[in-house]
């Protein structure tokens, strides 16, 4: 049993999508997500899907990577589909055992599927074309107006980027602990649910202890590198909005409006 995480893998390619300002990419993604929730009809999704296709093609990201983002959620998507299919009231189009599929249910189910796929594809594309640092920089920059009312924008962004930095470290560590416990005869994959949960304890305890040690080390390492919060801190990467950024943003807004109105 080994854990793999493919979410949030940055693909450093050379495309104009990659070169877009991460703040613009984040805003466009947010606009699209909101639009997805507002739209109530298939036609709107078609124009949004065309936009998605355009973005994927121009980002040079192999479509396979987008599918990889969808894969872990297929079960969830199918479950939602069948729930809608069988629980919506309306004209019955087929019956199987006690389950009645309705035309309205089919429609709603399909809408949900399209919604989820678009949602995940847009966010996957974002994480494929922005490095973790660009993403957290963009978040910090977009949230910074809230600093005035005391919102810890810098701290939030810092926590995000440290979390992203340590995901691979902790995954590796978890796999190592699992192997070590299995080597000692721990059985973590069989038995009742309660038993399996109990068997997680010998994995979680060392993981937690080590994580606290890591946090302690990291805090010290940041301190010796003169970290003292966001105040007076500069950034190596400078983000300057270009006319291309504004162009893509305008296109995105227009498409959102069209998708909602048609």
């Amino acid at each position, binding site marked *: 049993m080994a854990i793999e995480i493919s979410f949030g893998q940055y693909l450093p390619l050379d495309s104009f999508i990659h070169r877009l300002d991460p703040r613009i990419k984040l805003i466009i993604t947010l606009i699209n997500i909101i639009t997805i929730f507002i739209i109530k009809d298939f036609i709107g999704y078609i124009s949004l899907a065309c936009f998605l296709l355009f973005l994927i093609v121009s980002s040079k990201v192999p479509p396979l990577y987008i599918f990889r983002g969808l894969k872990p959620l297929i079960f969830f998507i199918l479950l939602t589909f069948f729930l809608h299919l069988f629980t919506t009231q309306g004209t019955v189009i087929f019956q199987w055992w006690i389950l009645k599929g309705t035309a309205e249910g089919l429609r709603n189910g399909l809408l949900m599927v399209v919604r989820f796929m678009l949602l995940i594809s847009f966010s996957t594309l974002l994480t494929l074309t922005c490095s973790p640092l660009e993403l957290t920089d963009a978040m910090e920059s977009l949230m910074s107006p809230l600093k005035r009312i005391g919102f810890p924008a810098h701290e939030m962004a810092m926590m995000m980027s440290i979390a992203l930095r340590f995901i691979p470290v902790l995954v590796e560590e978890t796999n190592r602990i699992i192997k070590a416990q299995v080597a000692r005869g721990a059985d973590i994959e069989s038995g009742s649910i309660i038993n399996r949960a109990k068997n997680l304890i010998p994995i979680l305890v060392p993981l937690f202890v080590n994580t606290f040690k890591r946090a302690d080390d*990291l805090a010290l390492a940041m301190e010796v590198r003169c970290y003292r919060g966001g105040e007076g801190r500069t950034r190596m990467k400078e983000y300057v909005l270009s006319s291309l950024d504004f162009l893509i943003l305008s296109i995105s807004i227009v498409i959102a409006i069209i998708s909602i109105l048609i």
Partner: protein
Amino acid sequence: MSIEVKNLSFDYEGISVLRDVNFQIDRGEFIGIAGPNGSGKSTLARCLNGIFSPVKGEVVVDGISVKDTSKQWIIRQTVGLVFQNPDNQLVASIVEEDVAFGPENLGIPPAIIRERVQYALERVGLINERKRPVSSLSGGQKQRVAIAGILAMRPEYIVLDEPTSMLDPVGRKEVLSTVLQLKEEGVGIIYITHHLEELVYADKIILLYKGEVFKEGSAREILTDEETLTRIGLEIPEIPALSLRLKGLGIDFNETPLTIEEMVNVLFN
């Protein structure tokens, strides 16, 4: 210009950990510090840049006392610290972004940060890996990224606290040769280690034992003093041990060889 440690004492809530430690290191000097577990090496390292403030005595960095809290950022920038675990001291996911972390904290303008990152990565030989995720690097490479992260702050001294103890022999060599090259370029190096063979090129070695300086001297004096090393639970490195054996067999050395090259020179010339 130097770090002066004068009668330094430190304790954790009343438990004395360092007592009356004295030494001095100049820029461009390489000082090795060794001692058994719990002898206070890491505590000493943290006293050198003011993370810990001396309970008694003084640590003075280029004329500034570490007790002067108004100067703490200058001191931390002047005296860089590198730690044991390469994973736990890298802050950002991408090599160059991590190296930039220190200069960013110092509030340096972006263009200069980029210059410094370039400079630091060239010094440690990782300029071609600048865009790589740190999680894809070897232990030795990660540790060199950590050194670059310190170098980018333009320190005058670097304190390394067991930087190689989690690395394989290849990584160990990479780190050690990087450090030796920095010394040549005029950086003061304080190198803490359990592996005494890494200290053969040290200008001076200080042995810590139970919070006190047990003995100090040149690399040749300390590394060939088998009795002292054994007494405080350290192992004499292979080549000095061999030299002592040969001496016992009646071979007369002017200078007891510490490295294979020296040994070969002495035996075959």
